[in-house]
């Protein structure tokens, strides 16, 4: 990743996420297929909801014949972390028009959010709509194509897991997390490691009481607060640093 903020660079930067999307898209499509959801509904779901884990939740709740209100509430909770990500990106696009902000926000995902955070570290903390739109649209189209293709061919490859493709998205998050920790030089690596370690420990404790998707939101908020507190304490007593 370099400092180029053109649309072309956006497409180039988003390409590695294609592997993750194809892996998860295929996994999702197989679940949808076995739940009796056809390719057109899968396409609509991917285009309208456009959120990996929420689509899994939606599908499994449909299969369990949950009421619509419960499904919408669960999807809202699973996706609540998106508000945190939007809030984090938005200050860098404050100077752009409201329309640009809404367009970028509409297609923001975990992946393009993390990419933009990585990107900021090599562009002197600037982002441009051209780069963001290209990355967002690239991810959007790959996701739609991967889920529909998966729904069409899913029944033909019953053992897609054997190829390890479903792990692509986890590996991608590992890469994005590590790159974020080494390229965000506003803090030392050890500080980033401290925050990441605290959050992971919190996840273990929280998942005793709530499912993982909810725990992600709570652990992130607590982790940020703890990070703020630690930084504040160190400023108060620099000699103990």
């Amino acid at each position, binding site marked *: 990743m370099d400092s180029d903020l053109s649309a072309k660079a956006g497409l180039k930067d988003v390409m590695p996420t294609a592997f993750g999307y194809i892996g998860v898209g295929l996994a999702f499509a197989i679940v949808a297929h076995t739940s009796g959801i056809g390719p057109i509904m899968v396409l609509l779901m991917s285009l*309208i909801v456009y959120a990996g884990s929420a689509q899994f939740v939606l599908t499994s709740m449909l299969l369990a014949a949950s009421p619509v209100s419960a499904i919408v509430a669960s999807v809202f909770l699973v996706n609540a972390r998106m508000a945190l990500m939007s809030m984090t990106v*938005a200050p860098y696009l404050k100077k752009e028009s409201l329309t640009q902000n809404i367009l970028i926000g509409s297609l923001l995902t975990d992946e393009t959010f993390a990419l933009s955070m990585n990107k900021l570290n090599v562009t002197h903390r600037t982002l441009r709509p051209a780069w963001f739109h290209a990355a967002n649209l690239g991810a959007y189209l790959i996701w739609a194509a991967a889920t529909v293709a998966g729904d069409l061919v899913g029944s033909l490859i019953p053992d897609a897991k054997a190829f*390890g493709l479903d792990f692509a998205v*986890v590996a991608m998050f590992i890469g994005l997390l590590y790159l974020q920790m080494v390229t965000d030089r506003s803090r030392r690596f050890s500080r980033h490691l401290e925050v990441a370690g605290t959050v992971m420990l919190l996840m273990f404790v929280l998942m005793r009481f709530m499912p993982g998707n909810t725990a992600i939101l709570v652990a992130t908020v607590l*982790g940020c607060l703890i990070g703020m507190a630690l930084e504040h304490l160190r400023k108060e007593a620099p000699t103990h640093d």
Partner: protein
Amino acid sequence: MTDGKLLVTILLCGLATWLLRVTPFVLVKAARLPKWLLSFLSFVPVAILAAIFAEELLVYHPGAWPTLNVENTLAALPAIVAAIISKSLLVTVVVGVAAMAAVRLLGWG
């Protein structure tokens, strides 16, 4: 469930998700963020990615402690090493997928 009801469900879920995505952009555009909030937000990228990663390493059991997702954890180790050495997203993903295929082939999961 009929396709009509399914479509309504999809539209409502889409609306809820869209509001979550867009509202912060509109709010930030309209208001000046206080310093403490900016400081809070500066921790979000590492915190949220670490949380997403941790969730993949754990298995949730309602009413009990989570257990380790052994195959994901085993495949994560080479991926972490690949990330450190290559600093490339693509290399990390390819190594991770290959590691997972190997873990399953060897029956370690």
